[in-house]
C-alpha cells in the first residue's frame, strides 16, 4: 500500500521547543555552569531569531513493510533496508511513515551571517535552537500521525546513519518521503540540505504487535534535567 504525500507547514511559533534542550546542546550543565542574566537574555534572543528564521515543513509518505530479522522489505519496488536496529524497532510493524522535515534555509543562513559579523555566541545559540526546533518539528509530525491513525502504535522517528542503518539509504528515503516538495535534498555524500532537517521513518505497529513500553531508563524517569537523559543511559 502506498498513500499520497501529505505536506504540513506548521507556523514556527507553534513548534514545541524545549529551552533546556537548547541549553544542553550548548554544553550547559545544571548546577555546574554559571549563567548571568545576560546569558539567559542571549539564549532567549537566539531562540527568537531562530524561530523567526524558520520556515518549517514536513512531508509524509507511507509504505507497507515486511520485517525480517535484520532487514525491512518495503512495498516500494527496489526499496529495502538492511539494519538490525531498524528491524528490531519495526518488529510487529505493518508500515512506516516516511518523514522528511526541514526548517528551511533561513536558520543556516542566519547562523552563517552572524558568524561573519563576529556575533559568535549568538550564532552558536541560533544553531542550537535550530537543532532543538527541528526536533520539535519531528514531534509535531509524530503528533499529527498519532491523531490520524487510530488503533495503531507509532514508533519514534528513526533515520539512516543511526545505529547500523546505512546512511546511504538516506538518498532514496528523501525522494520517497517527498523531500524535494519541501525543498529538502541530499548531497551525494548524504548530507541533508538545509542543515536543520531530519529524514527517517515512523513505524506503524499493529495491535498485538510489539509495544515499546520502557520498564527502565529515561522514559520512565521524571528527571528531565538529568545529564544521562541526554546521553541515553539508564540508572538504577
Amino acid at each position: 500500500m502506498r498513500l499520497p504525500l501529505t505536506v504540513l507547514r506548521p507556523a514556527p511559533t507553534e513548534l514545541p521547543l524545549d529551552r533546556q534542550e537548547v541549553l544542553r546542546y550548548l554544553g550547559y550543565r545544571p548546577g555546574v555552569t554559571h549563567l548571568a542574566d545576560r546569558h539567559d537574555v542571549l539564549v532567549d534572543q537566539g531562540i527568537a531569531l531562530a524561530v523567526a528564521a524558520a520556515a518549517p515543513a514536513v512531508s509524509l509518505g507511507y509504505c507497507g513493510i515486511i520485517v525480517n530479522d535484520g532487514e525491512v522489505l518495503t512495498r516500494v519496488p527496489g526499496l529495502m533496508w538492511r539494519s538490525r536496529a531498524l528491524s528490531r524497532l519495526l518488529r510487529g510493524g505493518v508500515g512506516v511513515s516516511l518523514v522528511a522535515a526541514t526548517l528551511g534555509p533561513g536558520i543556516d543562513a542566519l547562523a552563517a551571517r552572524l558568524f561573519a559579523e563576529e556575533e559568535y555566541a549568538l550564532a552558536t545559540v541560533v544553531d542550537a535552537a535550530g537543532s532543538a526546533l527541528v526536533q520539535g518539528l519531528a514531534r509535531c509530525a509524530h503528533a499529527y500521525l498519532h491523531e490520524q491513525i487510530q488503533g495503531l502504535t507509532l514508533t519514534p522517528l528513526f533515520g539512516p546513519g543511526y545505529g547500523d542503518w546505512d546512511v546511504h539509504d538516506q538518498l532514496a528515503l528523501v525522494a520517497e518521503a517527498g523531500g524535494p516538495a519541501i525543498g529538502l535534498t541530499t548531497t551525494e555524500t548524504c548530507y541533508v540540505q538545509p542543515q536543520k532537517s531530519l529524514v527517517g521513518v515512523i513505524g506503524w505497529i499493529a495491535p498485538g504487535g510489539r509495544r515499546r513500553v520502557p520498564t527502565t531508563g529515561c522514559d520512565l524517569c521524571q528527571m528531565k534535567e538529568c545529564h544521562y537523559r541526554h546521553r541515553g543511559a539508564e540508572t538504577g
Partner: protein
Amino acid sequence: MDHVLVFDGATGTMLQAQGLPPGYCPDLWCLERPDAVAWVHRQYIEAGAQIIETNTFGATPIRLSHYGLQEKVREINIAAVRIAREAAAGRALVAASMGPLGALVEPLGDFPFDRAYAEFAAQAKALAEAGPDFIIIETIADLNELRAALLACRDHAPGIRRIAQITIDPTGRAFTGTDPETAALVLQSLGADVIGFNCSVGPDVLVSAVEKMARVARVPISAQPNAGLPLLQLDGTTTFPMGPAEFAAYGPKLVAAGASYVGGCCGTTPEHIRQLRAAVEGLRPRTAPGPLSQVLGLASRTQSLFFVDQNLPVAIGERINPTGRKLLTKDIKEGTFALVRKEAKQQVAAGAAVLDVNVGVPLIDEAAAMAKAVQVVQDTVPVPLCIDSADAAVLEAGLKAYVGKPLVNSFSLEEGRAERVLPMVKRYGAAVLGLTIDENGLPSSAKQRFEIAKRLVAAAESYGIPRWDVVIDPLALTAGAQQAQAAETLKAIRLIREELGCRMSLGISNISFGLPNRHFLNAVYLNMAMTAGLDMAIMNPNDERMMDTIRATRLFLNRDVNAREYMAVVGPKRLVHTEDEVLAKAEKAAGTAASAGKAAAPVTVSPAAQSGAPADPLGARLYSAILEGDKDGIMPLIEQGLAEGRAAMDMLNRYLIPAIEEVGRLFGEGTYFLPQLMLSAGAMKKAFARLKPELQKAKAGSAEIGTIVLATVQGDIHDIGKNIVAVLLENYGFKVIDLGRDVKNEVVVEEARKAGADLVGLSALMTTTMPQMKKVIEMFAAQGTDIPVLVGGAATTRAFAQQIGAAGYGRDAQEAVALALRLLEARKAAAQV
C-alpha cells in the same frame, strides 16, 4: 576490616528474566512473587556475594505512587528485608536499597528538601522495623538528595549502618558538579558509615575516583560500577559492553585504589560477581587513613578546601554582614539579595577562600533570610561558606539550606550556647568556630584563653565532633583601648595551636578600631598573627594590602611554590594598597577612557575568576573583560593601556592570554557553556586585532605564532564547528587560513603549500566524508610534505585519527586548540634541532 566484601549485581534484569512484565513495579514483587526475588538473591549468594541488596530501590512513597502503591511502603520494605534474610540464611549480609526519588531536589530542581527528607524517612521507618544490616543509599548524583536521605536514615533508622553512594559521570564528577573528594568530605561528615560510588560508569572510571575519595575518607569505601558505559539500543533497551572476566579484572585495582566493598550495578550478572569474588579473594583492604582524612575540610557542592599547611593561611570574606551597612540591610530586608550576590562575587574575585554569611537585620524573619542568602551565595560562587549568627535557629536554617560542609560561626562556653549549637553542627556535618569566652566573659590572659579552648574542644568532642573540625578564635580586642591584649591574643594563638593542634582563626579588623590608618595596622597585625600560627583570618578581602600580606606570607613560608601566586598577582603591581587608593585609581582610569570619548563598560567579575586575576587594576579589567566576553568594554581598556605606554606584547602575554586560557579551563570543566566561550573569543579577537599592528610596529617578534590552514572536507557542507575552532585559534595568535566548506582535497594541499602552513586542520561531520581526511594525508605524504594534519568532527575519533596517520584529534574546539599549540611547539623545536 580484614577482608574485602563483595556485593551482588544488577537486580532489575534478573527479575525480568524471571518474568517481570514491562512497566510493572519491580518492588511489588516482594509481595507478589517473593519466590522470584529470593531466586535472584540465591543466584548472587551462590555466585559468592557476601552482601545482597533488597528489592527496594524504588520503595519510597513517591516512586511507588507511580503505580498507585504509595500505601504499601511499609509492607514492601519489610517483606523485602525478610525475603533477603531468608535467602541469605546466614551466608550473606543484607543491605536495604534506597534509590533516587526521580525528582531534582531544590535548589537545582523544584522538589522541596523537606519533602525529599519525608520520602526517605517513610522508607527508613519501615526499614528500621525490618532491621537490615545496612541501608544503602545509591544511584544518586545530587549531593543535596543524598543529604536528605542520610539525615532521614539517621533520624528514623538510627541503629542501622548507612552506605552512601554517589553516581558520577565519565568526567569523574557527578553531573551536578560534585567531585569525589567533596563527596567523601560531606557524606562522612553527615554520618555515612561507608561511602562510595555506583552505577553510570564502568570500573575503569571508578578506579581513579576511588583513589581520590580514599585521600579524604576515614570510613570504608564501596564501589559498584556498571559493566562499562551503557550503550542505548534503538528499541529502548540498554546493553553493557563489559563481560565478566574484563569486569572482574578491575576488582583488585579498585581494592588497591582504596575500596573495601566491591560489587556490580547495571549490566552485571551472577557470573560477573562470581569472577569478581574470585579476583578479590584474599585481598586485604587498605587500612592506612588517607592524608586528608583527619584534617579540617570545608566544602561547597562542587569543591573542597582542606586546611593543610600548603593551602594556608586563607581569607574568610566578612563583607556579607549588614551591621552598619544601610544598602546591604535594605537588600536583605527587601529580599532582593542583589548586593549579597555582588559582595559574594567581589570577595571571591579578590581571593577569599571562604565567605562568611551573616544576615543580622532587626525585625525580619532572620532564619528565612539566612536560608535564602545561603542559597543565593552558593548559587553565585563555588567557595565554601561560613554560616554566622548569634541565633541558633538562624544557624540551623543556614545549615539546612547549605549543600556542602560549612563552618559554623560560632559557639562559646557562655550559658547554653554550646548545648544549642553543637548538636546541629553534628547533625549537619559541619565544622565549628569556638570563641574563647566562658560564663565569665572574655579572659585577659593567653593562659586563660587556652584553658577555655581546651573546654571548647572537649565540649565539641562530647557531641561527636572531631577535634580537627573545631577552629578556635582567641579574639582580637581593640588595641586602642586594651593595648596589652594585642600581644596576649598572639600568645594564645601560639599556645592553643601547639598544645591542642586546632586550626586558628581571628577577626582582624577589631584590632585597629579608633586608631588612624586602620588598613596599615590591620595588615601588620595580620602578619604577626600568621607568624604566630594563624590559619585563617575573617577580614575584608577587598583590602588589597591585607590580601597581599597573606600572599607574601605564603611565599616566605614556602607554601606558594616558586612564588607563582605572588608573581602573578602582586608582581605586576606598583604597590597600590588601600581600598580607597584602588577605588580612586579605578575611577581615574575610567575617567581617562571616558575623556577619550569611549566610556569604559562596567566590568563585573565572574564568580569563576578567582586567584588567577591580576591585581594591577588595568590588567584586572582586561582579564575580566575577556572572562566576561565584554567585547565593547575591552577596546577602551586596550586604548588606555597603549596610551599609558604599555607594550602590546606585555598586555597580550600578561593579561589576555592568561584570561583566554582561564576561559578554556572554565569551559572544559563545564562552568562556562559554549556561548560564554564564544563571547570571550569575540572579545579576544577584537583585542588581538587592535594589538596586532602595535606588535608589528614594535617588532616584538611576529604577531602570529604560526599558520594553520583549516577546511571542512570535500563533500561536507557543515562548518560551524570548524568556524568555532578558527576563532579560538586566532585568539591564541595563529594565522588562520580558512578555506571554507566542501573544499577539494587538491585545494587543501595546494593552499597549505602556498601559505607555508605549519599545520592543517580538517573537519568532517559524517562517515561518508571522513575518508577524504585520509586522502589529504596521503596526498601530503606523496608530495613528501610533513605538515601535521589535525582532524575533528562529530563522527571522528582518536582511533580513527591514528588509523589514517593524522597528527592528532580534537574532541572539541578547546581540545583542538590545545593540540594545535602542542604540535606547533614540537614542530618549532624540531626545526631548531
